[in-house]
């Protein structure tokens, strides 16, 4: 409880770190802030070619593969960058941590938030694509989108608290996580549809909160339906669990940050 109160007092710091991160990220590159949009678009092109034209076996039933992929890929990029690059966030800010006091959680929170803002900006592109393709949207379904985003944010934050704190003591984690993130993507229905997962593996897939989260995005934006709330509720439960667990671990480990860094 006191953690929340203190974080609230430091809200301005979170705000200015997010601003600094968003402004500073592409500093010095020619295209600058445009990379926020170009990067996911290029990834989309690669995956669309590979899975839409060459490895089509798993996606035969999908009508508009690019859009099917796009609405899942953007939320996935948010999640994976939260855990991989987010893991390094504490180590990256070591100068600040060694020299001055502030609630340490501010750093992963502002990092995940800036990734989140990036995702929101990419959603502008998603809606533009939907509009250009003439697919259209279901307004009632789109209203549930913020809820899905919040659930994903909670889960991503929990994971990033966990990974960023452990990375301080165990630097290999940062590199291990990039592989884990890749494997996790293929174990989540991002490049394929949930329906192609064999029945016997379904339970396993359902334990992965990202399965539900990605599925919800797709239901809303691709199938234009209101998502199944029970799925979302399960994801939310797992998200909250990880957030609490991440917070506890983080609070325990943060006491020795200044010495380990």
């Amino acid at each position, binding site marked *: 409880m006191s953690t929340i109160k203190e974080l609230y*007092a*430091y*809200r*301005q*710091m979170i*705000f*200015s*770190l997010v601003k*600094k991160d968003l402004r*500073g990220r592409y*500093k010095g590159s020619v295209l600058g802030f445009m990379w926020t949009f170009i990067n996911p678009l290029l990834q989309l092109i690669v995956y669309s070619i590979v899975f839409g034209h060459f490895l089509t076996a798993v996606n035969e039933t999908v009508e508009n593969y690019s859009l099917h992929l796009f609405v899942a890929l953007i939320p996935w990029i948010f999640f994976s960058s939260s855990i991989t690059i987010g893991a390094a966030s504490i180590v990256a800010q070591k*100068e*600040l*941590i*060694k*020299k*001055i*006091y*502030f609630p340490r959680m501010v750093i992963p929170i502002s990092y995940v938030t800036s990734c989140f803002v990036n995702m929101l900006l990419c959603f502008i592109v998603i809606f533009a694509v939907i509009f250009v393709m003439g697919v259209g949207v279901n307004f009632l379904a789109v209203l549930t989108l913020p809820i899905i985003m919040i659930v994903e944010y909670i889960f991503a934050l929990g994971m990033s608290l966990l990974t960023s704190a452990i990375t301080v*003591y*165990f*630097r*290999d984690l940062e590199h291990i996580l990039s592989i884990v993130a890749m494997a996790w993507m293929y174990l989540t229905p991002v490049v394929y549809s949930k329906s192609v997962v064999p029945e016997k593996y379904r339970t396993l897939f359902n334990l992965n909160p990202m399965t539900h989260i990605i599925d919800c995005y797709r239901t809303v934006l691709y199938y234009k339906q209101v998502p199944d709330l029970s799925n979302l509720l399960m994801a939310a439960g797992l998200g909250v669990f990880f957030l609490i667990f991440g917070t506890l671990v983080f609070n325990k480990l943060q*006491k*020795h940050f*200044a*010495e380990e860094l």
Partner: protein
Amino acid sequence: MADNEIAIEVKDVAKSFKVYFDKGSQLKERLLFFKRNKYEERRVLKGISFTVKRGEAIGLIGRNGCGKSTTLKLLTRIMYPDSGKITMNGRVSSLIELGAGFHPDMSGRENIYTNASIFGLTKKEIDARLQDIIDFSELEQFIDNPVRTYSSGMYMRLAFSVAINVDADILLIDEILAVGDANFQAKCFAKLKEIKSHGTTIVIVSHSLGQIEQICDRSIWILDGLIRADGDPKEVDLEYLDFMGNEMQKSMNTGNLTGACETERHGNGNARIEKVRAFNSDGEEQSVFRTGEKIVFKIDYSVREKVFDAVFGLGVFNSNGVSCYGTNTRIDRFKLFNIEEDGTLEIVLEEVPLLPDLYSLDFTIEYGDGIPVDYCRHIFKIEIISGIGDIGVARIKHSFLLDENIEKKDEK
């Protein structure tokens, strides 16, 4: 005593660090080189306790590595103690790392917001202080330029202005007032006194005892992780200086010049200065003195070949290399003398008016016509301290005579 009167309570706090001889933080290294993970546990604080009342200002003194900076880091909660308890009542601000989070490409104004937010201020609070901060930094005309265009002095001024305008209940300071030029330092000092008069609790770590004596009500001397003395700065500082004077004598001024660097001395070597010592008015050997104190130098010299018409001299230089005073027996119109055998020269300096600084001294033996016999540059160092905040090179005896129609207040 009521709880709300205590600002800081430190109880039996101990802290040790693991000093790895060769640390690997990767899995491979940890497994493969299991033996390398040897470390030595260094106990920096061995159990210290003290309380600070609200509105009190204390100074932590002690030599390098004694644990005073660690204490300050524990107070700011950058680190946590291994055992013991620290209670802080009120908002804490620290002047430990100035300019934390400054972004070179952002303007001074934006950096004020970033930096102040790290101290936990909200946008509204920063808005309210913005003008004060800018005024204090004297950077009004540059405030919208990127910080990378600032000189390092301007940078520090901006950073200090932010930190000092946070309006904390407890202010922790590590070796400040080395910021900017003399004018700005004086201004910072005045601001600190003003803050103190508003009831802010202040903890200062400093090597400059003069600063501590001016601001603090109490000094705590930490020696090897334990509190050695706690009390009135004037008394504790003296005790500390005595101790340090002895230690310094052992290390810095061995006084023995036989191994001294030859480039720092020249002359034909017919007579050599062998050893220099400094004493206070009570005849105690020391190398730290107060402004206005008497200093006696004893110089042992040896003679290889008779020196005719000898002249002894000394020169005093401050830390900027400025010559503060120099004289010799010829300037003093001594009758000519020869030195034939080994002996000891005494130079008595009465009421040395030099202000706080680290001074180096030259001692010389010359022939009457100025040809050097043994000219030793910067061979001895003394430190001057003072509890009065006057600035410059030397204290000029002075008095202010107020107009009679000014009414004097009773208090001070």
